[in-house]
């Protein structure tokens, strides 16, 4: 599938109808989502024929992108039942089989090295400090091949240090810097739209034996 086609499909998805600020619900736009998954597949082969998990899937954008790029099995986890309903409908519209699980990403317990790749646009931690790193910590325990994640560019050094030193990542690379345009979703947003500089990261977890679950 070409990048433009992928972006087109993602642009047609339904998004949060009543976003919940305490969960930092912001849709991952089709521009970022398509580039994220396209790179994961074409530069690293981390998507097609793989088992892919979307942590904090919201309305399913990233998981759906993975499925469209031929991931063999995709599942998405989110704490919010309303988003999951929208995600289900989105997947159904595109005739994709994606398993959705309602849960706090941080509470789930996984068996075995089944998940190849974790993809996520985690909460940035504006409401609950350090939320994005909590997600990253879990992702690095679950994925056997790679973790793709978005974090604010302003936190770049901190993210790298945490991943390598605290979460046992074998490598942590910024693949590219993107502009995340956040539309005026919440009442407290003063401007019509803001542009946040975000890094698209690729982390490689430590090999399975040395992980402590």
């Amino acid at each position: 599938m070409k990048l433009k086609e992928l972006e087109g499909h993602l642009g047609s998805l339904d998004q949060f109808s009543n976003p919940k600020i305490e969960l930092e619900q912001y849709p991952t736009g089709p521009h970022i989502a398509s580039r994220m998954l396209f790179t994961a597949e074409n530069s690293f082969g981390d998507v097609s024929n793989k088992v892919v998990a979307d942590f904090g899937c919201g309305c399913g954008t990233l998981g759906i992108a993975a499925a469209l790029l031929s991931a063999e099995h995709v599942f998405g986890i989110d704490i919010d039942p309303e988003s999951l309903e929208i995600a289900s409908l989105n997947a159904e519209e595109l005739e994709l089989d994606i398993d959705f699980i309602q849960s706090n990403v941080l509470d789930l317990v996984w068996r075995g090295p089944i998940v190849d790749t974790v993809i996520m646009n985690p909460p940035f931690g504006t409401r609950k400090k350090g939320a994005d790193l909590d997600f990253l910590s879990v992702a690095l325990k679950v994925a056997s091949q790679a973790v793709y994640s978005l974090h604010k560019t302003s936190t770049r050094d901190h993210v790298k240090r945490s991943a390598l030193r605290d979460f046992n990542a074998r490598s942590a690379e910024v693949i590219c810097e993107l502009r995340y345009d956040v539309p005026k979703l919440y009442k407290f947003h003063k401007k019509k739209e803001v542009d946040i500089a975000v890094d698209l990261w690729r982390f490689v977890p430590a090999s399975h034996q040395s992980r402590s679950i």
Partner: protein
Amino acid sequence: MRLLTHNMLSSNIRGVVNGFPLRIEAGKVVEKNVEINGDFLKNMFVKIDWKAFVEASQSMGYTELPEEADSSMLDSDEFLNRFHHALLELHLEEGALVCPETGRRFPVSKGIPNMLLHEDEV
């Protein structure tokens, strides 16, 4: 929810020592065909907990899987088809996943299991 997902999920209640596998209470099971991918199946075979997988598929009403399996069976198309069918084509739409230690039920509705813990379970 497909059985591949079920084979990864464990009960996450605080204090539970062995929360895998979750027992399946199947209310409504739906079958959806999807193209078979032999390489993927061979890859998955070594990662699957076979006993839990067979038990789960039996709960979903599918009894064609052998109780025990080894990788030589992957040469058989018949085996691959059954493996594929149970792993990826059976969907639990309504029912529950039950913690093997505490008996706590995690309801499954519209294919989505609700694994959210209550405050005292975290």
